[in-house]
């Protein structure tokens, strides 16, 4: 108890020195609070972005494996490669369903593409170079069927934008023979919403679709062509196309599934599981991890900068405090000598000196936390505000791509849009975690700077001190 009393007397006695120490700790605490708050905010944003990017796994060709024995200088090499390619066994929709039945997969979606010819419409094909822009199977039209909204990546990333849409389009889009057609194709064939188009397979079977939306492709002007690449692309739902191929095995379909996994760590296990379930070994699984990491790189830079700043502040602050403490000890050598002579133990004396610093540090840390909290609120909130703005703009843009305000962000979660909530109060930024971190930093600094007093008390001979004084 008397140690505490002595410590308090000493603090009051050495006001100027303790105010100086207090100001230094306050500045350090302020800087630390701001940095920790920014780090926390950045961490929150990183988590938000990482959550925003669902962990996607897609199936793609293992090109490296394909090209392993390919020698382009030899005819046999080219023929071997072609034969190898032709022999790759593709996967069906039932394979995809089987693949998706895995403990590592939380959900999945896919696109299902087939080619059909026009029956009562003509493909848009007039262009300067005379090339045919119809796609797979050399048919007039490429029909892309999406399993759900998440699968409609061209609309999400803004390649396609809906220019006209029926009121109930999104209620019926995934169930029945409905299509969204390109604006250019609509103009070319004088088609409007709710018109019905007829398409035919190679063997002459016809299929009728109702137009529920017209979209346009957003691409840079291509001077060489009159129509955009997607002019003859018809967007529909996967079910409609699956029922066509079910009754007509001649129509070849291309399936592009996307699996949502719980962790990127399990992808290798998942790939082995796919192979066991019959996936050809010329296919491999690919993730969107890099894309997700790229999205958070700028925030991670802020995070790294904060860490560096925090480290520098602590090093410089620690050195300054250590030096002040050493000077303090030199000034108080006489006091140490007297106290040691009248029998105070080294331990108790060290505790008193550390206690003095702890009392000053705690007061300064509390003030620093308050000042830091006020300042960091602005810094963190401006950081958040720009992210919120970006996020909202992106949501709005995607909504527009899909044809209007009917789409909400909840439906679109997982497409690279962070769900950022605004911080309303200081507590949200400088929370208990920051306070605890600040406290541990403060205590560490105090202990480091107390090393000077500990060493000095251990080293000083009381008699020598008192003799010097005499």
């Amino acid at each position: 108890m008397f140690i505490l009393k002595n410590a308090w007397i000493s603090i009051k006695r050495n006001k100027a020195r303790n105010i100086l120490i207090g100001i230094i700790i306050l500045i350090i605490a302020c800087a630390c609070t701001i940095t920790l708050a920014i780090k926390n905010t950045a961490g929150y944003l990183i988590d938000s972005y990482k959550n925003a990017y669902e962990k996607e796994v897609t199936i793609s060709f293992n090109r490296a494996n394909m090209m392993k024995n390919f020698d382009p200088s030899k005819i046999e090499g080219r023929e071997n490669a072609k034969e190898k390619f032709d022999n790759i066994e593709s996967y069906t929709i039932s394979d995809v369903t089987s693949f998706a039945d895995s403990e590592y997969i939380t959900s999945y979606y896919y696109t299902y593409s087939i080619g059909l010819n026009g029956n009562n419409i003509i493909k848009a094909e007039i262009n300067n170079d005379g090339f045919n822009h119809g796609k797979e199977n050399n048919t007039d039209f490429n029909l892309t069927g999406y399993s759900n909204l998440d699968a409609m990546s061209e609309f999400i990333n803004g390649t396609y934008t809906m220019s006209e849409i029926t009121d109930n389009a999104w209620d019926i889009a995934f169930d029945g023979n409905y299509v969204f057609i390109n604006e250019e194709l609509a103009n070319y064939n004088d088609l409007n919403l709710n018109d019905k188009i007829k398409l035919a397979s190679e063997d002459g079977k016809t299929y009728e679709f109702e137009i529920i939306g017209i979209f346009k492709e957003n691409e840079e002007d291509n001077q060489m062509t009159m129509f955009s690449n997607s002019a003859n692309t018809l967007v529909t739902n996967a079910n409609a196309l699956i029922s066509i191929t079910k009754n007509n095995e001649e129509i070849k379909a291309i399936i592009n599934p996307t699996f949502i996994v719980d962790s990127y760590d399990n992808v290798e296990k998942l790939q082995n599981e796919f192979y066991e379930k019959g996936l050809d070994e010329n296919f491999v699984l690919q993730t969107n991890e890099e894309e997700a990491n790229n999205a958070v790189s700028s925030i991670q830079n802020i995070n790294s900068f904060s860490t560096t700043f925090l480290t520098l502040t602590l090093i410089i602050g620690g050195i300054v405090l250590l030096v002040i403490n050493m000077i303090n000890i030199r000034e108080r050598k006489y006091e140490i000598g007297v106290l040691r002579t009248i029998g105070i133990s080294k331990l108790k004396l060290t505790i008193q000196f550390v206690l003095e610093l702890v009392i000053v540090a705690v007061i300064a840390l509390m003030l620093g936390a308050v000042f830091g909290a006020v300042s960091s609120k602005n810094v963190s909130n401006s950081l958040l505000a720009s992210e919120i703005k970006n996020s909202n703009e992106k949501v709005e843009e995607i909504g527009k791509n899909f044809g209007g305000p009917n789409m909400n962000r909840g439906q679109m979660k997982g497409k690279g849009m962070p769900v950022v909530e605004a911080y309303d109060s200081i507590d949200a930024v400088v929370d208990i975690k920051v306070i605890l971190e600040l406290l541990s930093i403060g205590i560490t600094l105090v202990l480091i700077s107390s090393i000077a007093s500990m060493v000095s008390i251990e080293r000083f001979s009381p008699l020598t001190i008192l003799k010097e004084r005499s």
Partner: protein
Amino acid sequence: MKKKKNEEIKEKNIILSIKNASYRYSDAEENDYALKNVSFDFESGKIYAIKGRSGSGKTTLLSLISGLERCSEGEIIFDGKSLNMMNLDKYRNSEIGIVFQSYNLLPFMTASENIILSMDINGLKIKNKKEKAIELMEKVGLKDIYADRKVLRLSGGEQQRVAIARSLSYNPKMIIADEPTGNLDKQTETEILEIFKKLAHEENKCVIIVTHSGNVCDSVDVIYDLKKSVNL
């Protein structure tokens, strides 16, 4: 043999016994002793003077008997126990009181605070420490009005009285004083020496004064001349 010696010490009322004590500084050469083979006995109820010329090792001897340093060779026995085996912090804050020529009070504290601090370090558990401090001050001839005065506002003699009061605060068996009157005038010196005599003769304390003052030597019961005792 050792037991017999201890019994002898008790019979003679010896409180402190220095047995062939030698001291060499840690950075000194092998045979360069600051103090060599010193043997003295000190009894309770007597006042002693240790005299010697400058460099004779007075201060070294003081630091050894006050437990600020340990002997390089030999031993010091206090109240039947070797200082080598004792906690010297405890020894200094319980068994002995030390008084210095330059008083060594804490200048930022009042007279009573200096005395109370010493009680606190000792761990003395009494209800009203300030009352006890004032009582001790009165015992050494200081009025209670000095209790709340910062020590820097006191005269040299007054400060030395406070230092003596501080050394008595936990009722030690022995008082060790290093040139306690060196900075004081004759009149005050006499008064201070009277206090020491009272402590020795009336309160049965052992008082050891390190000095080269003839006046002090005239007032003590036993004089040890360090020069004569040192076997160089």
